[in-house]
């Protein structure tokens, strides 16, 4: 899920650390005299890695996606949407503390902090926002919930279903949002609603897609200037690029979030899934074996062992450095590249979910999960703020540079216009227009069922990347690898089913 990569901007002083508004450091690197316009210098790499890994290292975790503030940002050309304010249903007072991630797009946090402070002044609530590295959010949430004290409102960008017993039911907020703005996206509903307990364990107002990112210059050389359209195209084209130029494909197989997303996209496209609609484990199937066989071929013909060592930032770094021809990721790394090195940014293009034998599906890249713990001191203010935040989703989308898309599509009528004519200077201006249909090719990570705690544990303990990886490495046959993974999935589902949080 690592998105934002620091690419040294031309003409800036090298390696100058600049503290950002959250106390993390932004390293502005210079373009090394040894780097070419399409590559990334060793110094640039170290600068970006320093920021990326440094943030994670403090917590002992490596996550390139954490607090990755950028070099120069893209400049908006359109007018920012006007913010709206609706008086709360009841009088609010006291304080409200919010714990949330440091957004991959730094502009968002700058906007958000002012936005929430303005709201607090209007409604008479003293608001405090703590932005932390996104990989630290689950740990912090777990410790606060164990301690029974902490923030009133916590936001994470991956499913938070395991916290259901300790959080407030958000059904009332969702119902109010549905009343105001129409039906919520099914993707967001399935990522926040537990059909077994009939509770909304969190509130999901936004999400981000996970398209394919490719280097046009490389794919043009093999006769596919528009990139691959199917998994077979990917195998054919990426293998040819690797054969001709030595540049491999960048679908990860390591224990990290981007590899997990890619594994699901491939699995679903071949007709496989971890669970069915009724939350029964169906992983051990011919379709899954076929997907694993495909991945084995892709690894052997178009990839290298690099993909086994990747952290979330690695695929971004590789794509921007010209060391990968194709990756699965969101748009933010490209945004940074655009601001830092226009030539690289202009060479990166996107494709929707690749077509497989059975479907064209990708997992969401980010899914907003807002929870109000039972220990929250001011739940009314928390819920009112969420409605205010949702009402202003046009500003959220705009200030995240089109990274955050709305969970209630009617809220952002300008979205298609922005995607057709990027306010942040994409070249061509409609580079992101494929995202207009993103809801049709994006699924929640529990597809075709809901994102339940068992799915969350399977995701966080990397069952699928291990399944694909063991077969690709030749450590197990595709059938054996699938059987092993299915055994683990069965045990995990059984465990959570016993707690009443998973059906089937």
């Amino acid at each position, binding site marked *: 899920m690592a998105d934002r990569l620091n690419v040294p901007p031309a003409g800036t002083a090298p390696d100058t650390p600049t503290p950002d508004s959250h106390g993390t450091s932004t390293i502005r690197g210079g373009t090394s005299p040894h780097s070419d316009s399409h590559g990334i210098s060793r110094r640039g790499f170290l600068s970006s890695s320093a920021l990326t890994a440094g943030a994670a290292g403090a917590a002992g975790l490596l996550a390139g996606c954490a607090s990755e503030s950028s070099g120069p940002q893209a400049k908006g050309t359109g007018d920012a949407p006007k913010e709206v304010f609706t008086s709360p249903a009841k009088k609010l007072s006291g304080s409200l503390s919010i714990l949330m991630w440091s957004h991959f797009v730094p502009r968002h946090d700058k906007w958000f902090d002012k936005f929430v402070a303005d709201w607090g002044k209007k409604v008479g609530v003293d608001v405090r926002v703590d932005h932390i590295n996104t990989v630290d959010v689950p740990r912090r949430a*777990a410790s606060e919930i164990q301690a029974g004290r902490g923030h009133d409102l916590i936001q994470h960008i991956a499913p938070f279903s395991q916290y259901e017993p300790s959080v407030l039911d958000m059904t009332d907020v969702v119902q109010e949002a549905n009343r105001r703005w129409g039906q919520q996206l099914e993707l967001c509903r399935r990522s926040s609603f537990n059909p077994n307990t009939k509770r909304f364990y969190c509130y999901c107002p936004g999400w981000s897609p996970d398209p394919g990112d490719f280097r046009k210059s490389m794919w043009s050389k093999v006769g596919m200037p528009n990139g691959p359209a199917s998994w077979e195209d990917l195998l054919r084209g990426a293998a040819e690029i690797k054969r001709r130029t030595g540049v491999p494909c960048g679908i990860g197989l390591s224990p990290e979030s981007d590899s997990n997303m890619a594994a699901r996209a491939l699995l679903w496209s071949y007709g496989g899934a971890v669970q069915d609609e009724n939350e029964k484990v169906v992983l051990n199937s011919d379709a899954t074996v076929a997907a694993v066989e495909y991945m084995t071929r892709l690894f052997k013909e178009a990839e290298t062992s690099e993909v*086994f060592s990747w952290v979330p930032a690695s695929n971004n770094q590789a794509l921007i450095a010209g060391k990968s021809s194709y990756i699965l990721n969101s748009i933010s790394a490209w945004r940074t590249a655009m601001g830092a090195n226009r030539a690289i940014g202009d060479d990166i293009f996107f494709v929707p979910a690749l077509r497989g034998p059975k479907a064209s599906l990708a997992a969401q890249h980010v899914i907003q999960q807002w929870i109000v713990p039972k220990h929250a001191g001011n739940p009314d203010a928390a819920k009112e703020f969420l409605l205010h935040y949702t009402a202003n989703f046009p500003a959220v989308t705009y200030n995240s540079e089109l990274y955050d898309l709305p969970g209630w599509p009617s809220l952002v009528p300008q979205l298609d216009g922005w995607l057709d004519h990027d306010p942040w200077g994409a070249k061509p201006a409609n580079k992101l227009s494929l995202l207009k249909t993103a809801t049709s090719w994006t699924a929640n990570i529990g597809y075709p069922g809901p994102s339940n705690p068992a799915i969350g544990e399977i995701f*966080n303990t990397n069952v699928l990347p291990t399944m694909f990886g063991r077969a690709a490495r030749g450590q197990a046959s595709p059938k054996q690898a699938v059987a092993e993974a299915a055994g683990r999935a069965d045990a995990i589902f059984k465990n959570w089913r016993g*707690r009443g949080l998973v059906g089937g």
Partner: protein
Amino acid sequence: MTDARTETEPVAVPGEAARPKVGLADRDGFLAWAMLLPSVVYIAALVGVPFLLAVAFAFSDVTTGDPSFDFVGFRNFTAVFDDGVFWRALRNTLVFTLASMALIVVFGKILANILVAEFRGKWFVRFLVLLPWTTPVSLSTISWLWFLDSIYSPVDWVLRHLGLIDGNVVWLGRPGTAMASVIAVQTWRLTPLAAVIVMAGLVAIPRDVDEAARIDGAGFWRRMFEVTIPLTLPVIAVAGLFGAIMTFTDMTVPFVLTRGGPTHSTDVLASWAYFRGIEGGDVGQGAAIALFLFPLLLAGAVAILRAVRRLEAG
């Protein structure tokens, strides 16, 4: 009734006025406990309580999202033992520990010998040698992560320029080299500690023993294997014990370098406990995995300490 009161005059004992008053600070018993208390409180609060909590969690159904405690007997242990990754992590832990311990002891001894020798710039060398030990483990491991990066590894760059390799090794992307990298970084990190411990043993060897061996015509290697090593063996064993315990319980190096990958080939018990307990959300099973370390560590520590005692007695 007569009230006969007899008032006794205090009798001055010669020398008593000169004896200083005995305060709490002069009582050995009190002082010993006062000195020990911070350590006892520290160990009880930061080791004892979490340990008991881990035992309780291992027999419970506690999750990250549900702190309520329900006793589940040995269910967590059964589930953990049925999981193939657990046994892989156990095997990895033993390989990681034994290989690291052996290397730490060997390099610690070599380094200690260098550090006790007299040469120009000795203090600077000592400072450099101790740096890996004094740097926070997460930061130093991140530095190694860059050194071993799959694309930009300076190690690969040097090897390429020396003509030893053609393409990148991809240290962290292959099971064998990933485990070797994890062991190498752990060895690099803990060798200074072992060196300092062994150095203390080396400087404690009476000079006349060494001199007598020299006069008898013993060369460097003979003195090393027949005088120095036997005399410092208890200290070397302690260095090995420290290294083993610190490696066995460590998750930072494998976690930061590889997150247990590729395909769990560097997952150790501590990291797998973290993945299951915190990231996966099942605190009970995570605690059961973590608790599995305890009897192994206890057995290892007892065995090594007994061996040391036998050596000292001998």
